């Protein structure tokens, strides 16, 4: 990922792709609901969400296979909502790859170029360039069914990039690959995108994939964008209970704001008081939720070292050994279960803190997030 690339933070930057109030319905089902989104030139944008959240519909709206019921889709300032797919400077890589089985690899890559009525020599040169780009030199004459899954994926990518689209849409591009190949291909896709500078919009249901590859992630649920943010912000500063719960693991502790101190909200929850960094607009008496990630909760035999840290007493119910880390389930007041993750930094084989031990869970105020939604 390129450092310092953040046009979304620049108020003066103009979006390459701008969706305004875009809605799409299938009968009674609202697939995309009054959605606004800006995607910038050169960005690697991921649409992430559970299945049925509308992310694929959104991608198909961008490709032109669906037309929105309402709203506009602006590409470089021009509304393309009613432009058919074959006249959009946007190309798509399909989940099934959709390679033409009756054409060779070169024929597949040349297909889009032929539609532009490019000269024979120009087409051949571009096909050779694309084959080199995806490291498939010498396989141009093969038919798709003579290729491995990974090779077919590359052909699909080369075919979609051959026309030099303004935006490349990728629908679950790595879903059909096995795990090892997927990790390698993620890396290659990121490098390719950085090299070409083409705007990529990828749809995925795999959080890790989105976090690894994208500049920004749009998390979708039931046709709405719940949060659009950089991966780290999405994880460390989720804007709602739903996003916090969807991305990674989290402890959500419901409570009520008891008092406000400068920059700190004191929240009454689980029969005690917690000090959490305040979010704007929170007032005393508001019902809020404290979100704290398991790896930010420390498990100790003794109470907190720093007096400002929050402390929860409980007993260890379960320990899950995951190799790199161990996952603790601790029962605290009201029978509430708190998860804590501890890195296994040494080669100890017995857990430093065993089952049924009385422990203190501590976390600093700035390591938790106060959620109102």
């Amino acid at each position: 990922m390129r450092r310092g690339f953040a046009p979304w933070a620049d108020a003066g930057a103009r979006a390459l792709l701008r969706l305004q109030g875009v809605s799409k319905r299938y009968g009674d089902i609202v697939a995309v609901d009054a959605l606004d989104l800006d995607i910038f030139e050169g960005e690697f944008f991921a649409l992430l969400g559970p299945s049925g959240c509308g992310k694929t519909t959104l991608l198909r709206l961008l490709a032109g296979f669906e037309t929105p019921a309402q709203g506009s889709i602006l590409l470089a300032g021009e509304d393309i909502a009613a432009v058919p797919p074959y006249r959009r400077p946007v190309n798509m890589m399909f989940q099934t790859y959709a390679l033409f089985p009756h054409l060779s690899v070169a024929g597949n890559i040349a297909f889009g170029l032929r539609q532009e009525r490019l000269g024979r020599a120009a087409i051949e040169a571009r096909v050779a360039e694309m084959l080199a780009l995806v490291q498939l030199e010498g396989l141009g004459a093969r038919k798709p069914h003579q290729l491995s899954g990974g090779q077919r994926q590359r052909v699909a990518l080369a075919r979609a990039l051959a026309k030099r689209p303004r935006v490349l849409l990728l629908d679950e591009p790595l879903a059909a690959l096995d795990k090892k190949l997927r990790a390698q291909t993620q890396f290659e896709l990121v490098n390719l995108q950085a090299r070409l500078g083409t705007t990529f919009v990828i749809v995925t249901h795999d959080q890790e994939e989105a976090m690894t590859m994208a500049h920004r992630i749009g998390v979708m649920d039931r046709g709405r964008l719940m949060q659009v943010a950089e991966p780290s912000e999405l994880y460390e500063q989720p804007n709602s209970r739903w996003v916090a719960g969807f991305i990674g693991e989290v402890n959500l502790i419901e409570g009520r704001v008891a008092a406000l101190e400068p920059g700190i909200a004191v929240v009454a929850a689980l029969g005690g008081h917690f000090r959490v960094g305040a979010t704007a607009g929170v007032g005393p008496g508001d019902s809020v939720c404290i979100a704290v990630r398991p790896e930010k909760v420390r498990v100790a035999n003794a109470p907190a070292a720093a007096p400002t840290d929050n402390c929860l007493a409980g007993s260890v119910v379960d320990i899950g050994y995951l190799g790199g880390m161990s996952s603790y389930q601790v029962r605290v007041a009201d029978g509430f279960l708190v998860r804590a993750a501890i890195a296994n930094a040494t080669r100890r084989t017995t857990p430093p803190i065993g089952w049924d031990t009385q422990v203190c869970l501590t976390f600093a105020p700035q390591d938790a997030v106060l959620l109102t939604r």
Partner: protein
Amino acid sequence: MRPAPSLFNIVSVACGLAFLYLPIAVLVVYSFNASRLVTVWGGWSLRWYGELIGDQALIAAARTSLLIALASASAATLLGTLAALAITRFGADRGRTALSAMVLAPLVMPEVITGLSLLLLFVAINLDRGFLTVTIAHTTVTMCFVAVVVKARLADLDRSLEEAAMDLGCPPARTFLTVTLPLIAPALAAGFLLAFTLSLDDLVIASFTTGPGATTLPIRIYSDVRLGVKPEINAICTIMIATVALALIVASLALRRASSATTSRRPGAA
């Protein structure tokens, strides 16, 4: 390993095959009979095949049959493909089911009824019966067979292939010609050959809808046989069997090749 076939299996298969093919085998063998008497074996000979060439009426009937089969199979392929496209691609689910049932119903319609209703229609609209009416009738009957074959192929076809073509800048009509058509071509060929053979051997519908000057081969054979079986009939029937068998073999090979070319995916074969 499957167990070796038992005696019972072998006998039952042999009986079944004999039941199906013994009459045809007898006919084929007797077409090479040197004797004029159909029931008496007089040694091997190609005499009746030679005499066929001189039988102008039979040759004319064969020509008529071939022309009708070609014309009706072409029309049926076109209409059946359109019907299959309509069934698989357009309209709401309920309308599609109804359309599908209506297109496929003639498959099980008794031929006598189809023939009679067509005859009534032609009389009602005052269309002179002959080559055209038989062709129309055969098209009506065989297009549903084409529709069945093409529909199966279209249902197997990945829709994203067409979307990919459009995404790459290919307008819908050209997408149909450059992507859809090549991929369903084997089904069209199979449907055409099926329609061709059905038309070639139809007697019932043709005899309802034919008129002067459009005597098809089955009609000719049937009327000749009523005056007694001539050895030439055996010869022409053998030629017909060979033609139809060849067409069906080609059709099934075309379909099999098509399905293996597009479905032989090797997932994860890195």
